[in-house]
């Protein structure tokens, strides 16, 4: 029987669907009766969803364009002198 610490150590691969079938059975057996790990697993799953879908630190087009222009000005300058 695996412990809560074992479950937490394996939760990353479990969330990504990258555990072997026999390990998955053990993890699911543990989480089926451990409320704490159920909560951690469920909230970790939602954390990934919230993070992936958050659109965090997006660079708006209005900000990206002037930076790209500056870079290209330097690139063309270097291209001419090389």
């Amino acid at each position, binding site marked *: 029987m695996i412990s809560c*610490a074992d479950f*937490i*150590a394996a*939760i*990353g*691969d479990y*969330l*990504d*669907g*990258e555990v072997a079938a026999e390990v998955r059975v053990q993890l699911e057996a543990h989480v089926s009766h451990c409320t*704490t790990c159920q*909560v*951690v697993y*469920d*909230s*970790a*799953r*939602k*954390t*990934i*969803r*919230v*993070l*992936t*879908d*958050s*659109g*965090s*630190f*997006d*660079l708006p087009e209005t*900000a*990206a364009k002037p*930076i*790209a222009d*500056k*870079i*290209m000005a*330097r*690139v*063309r300058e*270097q*291209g001419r002198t090389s």
Partner: protein
Amino acid sequence: MLLTLAAANGNTYSATAHYQMLCLLGEPEEWLDQLLRDYRHSDLPRADMALLDFAVKLGVNGPAISHEDIAGLTAQCCASEIVLDTVLIAAWASFLSCLSTGVGASPDFAPVPIPPGAVFITKAPHAEESAHHAGPYFAASETEPEQFAPFAFFREYFGFVPNVFRAQSRRPDVIAAEAEALRLVLLVEDRLTRIQKERILLTVSAANRNGYFVAVHSEILGALGVSPADVDKLVADYRRADLTKAEVALLDVALKLAEEPSGFGPQDVTRLRSHGFSDEEILEAVVMTSFTSFLNTLQFGLGAIPDFVPRRTFPRISAKVANLLAPKVRPTGDGLVTDADAEAVARVQRGNCDAFEDLINRHSRRVYRTLVGILGNQEEARDAMQDTFLKAFRHLGDFQGRSKFSTWLVSIASNTGLQLLRDRKPLQSLDDDAIDADETFRPRQIRAWSEDPEQLYSKAEMCGLVEDSLMKLPAKYRIVLMLRDIEQLSIEEAATALGLGIPALKSRHLRGRLMLREALTPHFAVGAKGGTA
């Protein structure tokens, strides 16, 4: 042809299956190995070689096909029936590659390694220089729907007989099979709705730069009640269309499967499951995406002319090498990897500085996020972005394609950010591995989260909460979360970019996710802002 196309698509599953088939048909293994290594030096008759060249070009770079390619085949005495069969085989190979990747199929026999040769990689013809693109390349059928049941089916369910099917008049058996496949895959609403499937067809076709199918499915979505403005948003940037997060995730995953199959994996399926999609729905999305790649390849090969005035046309290959099923193989010891940026990189390396702008436009967001991840400061990240791209430009001559250009660029961004971090705080480093190995992370916040945390806050509030929480994490965890969960880099790509081993990368990724969970729990737990379980 199927074996060569599987190799060109970097698809080990299909390569193994067709290698085995050819063995069973009595072909010697040495000859098959030569076909895989370099079919151009395999003693094939000239006409067969021309057909393979055409099939590979169609399979990996469909939009570049032009009237000249068909004329070239005719000059080699290839009859129209043979060219049509070749188009069908290339389309079928696109379907199989996409489907086997999407369902994660393991080879049915001992896997046949695809040699990391360059023969398929530098196929970026200068399509913009081709003079005669206009199709159709084959005579279209004049048959009336009353005379041919599949045409009657198209008229009943789509209101017209699409030119892409009329162009296959020499193979009525195939048209009938395609009509039946369309009925089963698109029209039967087992799991996903018709509109969800049409959205996949539209956005994948747009990514494949297939103006024909964008026109057809824009029209059909309109007939299903989607406004022209919403259709345009789907085509231009579905992330800005008014879709739920689950719907955006569905399209993200479909596009990744179509465009970056080498990066597609269990994490994508997990992502869809986390949005509430059942395995049956996910399978339908995979089949729909594969069928779209089939249809797109078919149209490129037939040159079928649009049935409607296209709502959007795509310039011939210039900024982006169109990539139905990007022939990407994973990095191997000393091999090259194929890369959607290869053409632009090659142009810059040949001295065309302007082509570098394409690379900036494609990757500026990723570079920016990498730098924010390390520096934790958006202003500094914008400045460091310029340094990163200028370093990349200066060193592009040294880039030999052993990793994808994007991975190479992110590693430059990462090194640039780390150097700035060290200059700023000499004691702060991303290199400290001790904590990863020695300390077990113990969750402290054991409060159940609201069933639907996204409903508790507006989109802008959610973004702000996540950004604030990420900023509070140590840089070494934040950067891994940015690359893996926001940028969706594979474990191998993120590890390469950060110069970390895979165990260290995975350890930091897990720690970062758990730390972020701790930070977000007060906002999303049951009872926060009235959330309910």
